């Protein structure tokens, strides 16, 4: 237990990761898969940001009266990751909308079935 205690901040990451991956693989609905993907991506946020926190510190905006700041570099990286995440989500949803229009369904197995019926 003593080995695990200093690393509790990663448990949340792990839980989110399992949840995201699980929704992504197990569910057949295309929108739901995208939400799983978004949860998976957001699990990374804590992996980067939590270790950057220093107890007794403050947000990295330099001002008189503070000397300890949390680490700004992970913040910058995750800002990028969030924006990349929403960009991917937007594109994924656009493709899903087109799939719905072309196949009349957004369930993975029904789409595969229709493709098979067409004989590739």
């Amino acid at each position, binding site marked *: 237990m003593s080995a695990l205690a200093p690393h509790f901040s990663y448990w949340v990451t792990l839980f989110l990761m399992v949840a995201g991956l*699980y929704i992504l693989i197990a569910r057949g609905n295309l*929108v739901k898969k995208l939400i799983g993907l978004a*949860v998976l991506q957001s699990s990374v946020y804590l992996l980067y940001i939590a270790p950057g926190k220093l107890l007794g510190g403050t947000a990295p905006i330099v001002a008189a009266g503070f000397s300890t700041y949390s*680490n700004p570099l992970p913040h910058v990286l995750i800002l990028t990751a*969030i924006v990349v995440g929403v960009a991917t989500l937007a*594109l994924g949803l656009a*493709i899903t909308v087109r799939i719905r229009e072309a196949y009349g369904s957004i369930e993975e197995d029904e789409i595969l079935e229709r493709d098979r019926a067409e004989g590739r």
Partner: protein
Amino acid sequence: MALQRDLFSVVVLFAIYSFLMATVLVALDAVDVAMTEAAVGAGASTVLLLGALHLTGAREAKRMERPLVPLALSIVVAAVLGWGSLGLPAFSDPGAPIHTHVVPRYLNDGPRETGVPNIVAAVLASYRGYDTLGETVVVFAAGAGVIALLRRRKRR
């Protein structure tokens, strides 16, 4: 969220999740990230999801067959990460490499070198400004890509 079959509630849950994430980020002193997560994760993503649901229908078909294989797979992946994280520095350890290498220059000289006291803004726009150019291009790519995919046909 995994079990809920009404996609509308899934989206609402997802928005709540994003807001919770934003508050956690505030607690971790990542105010810029929290603001972005609230605006982009909870705001923009939700609007996009709702817009898409309107076009695709909000009901998930059914079932969940063989849920164990995916579960095992995701747990294996997480176990690898969990095992790896055991070797990481402890939480809030000021002697961790991320606090002693590279970053001290940002914190100590950033305000003088860039004239911006918000170090996140300084790193984002100047030290690692090229990343942010790439990020802007990613947004541009998504915008142009969605136009290419969803622009209405003129005739038909």
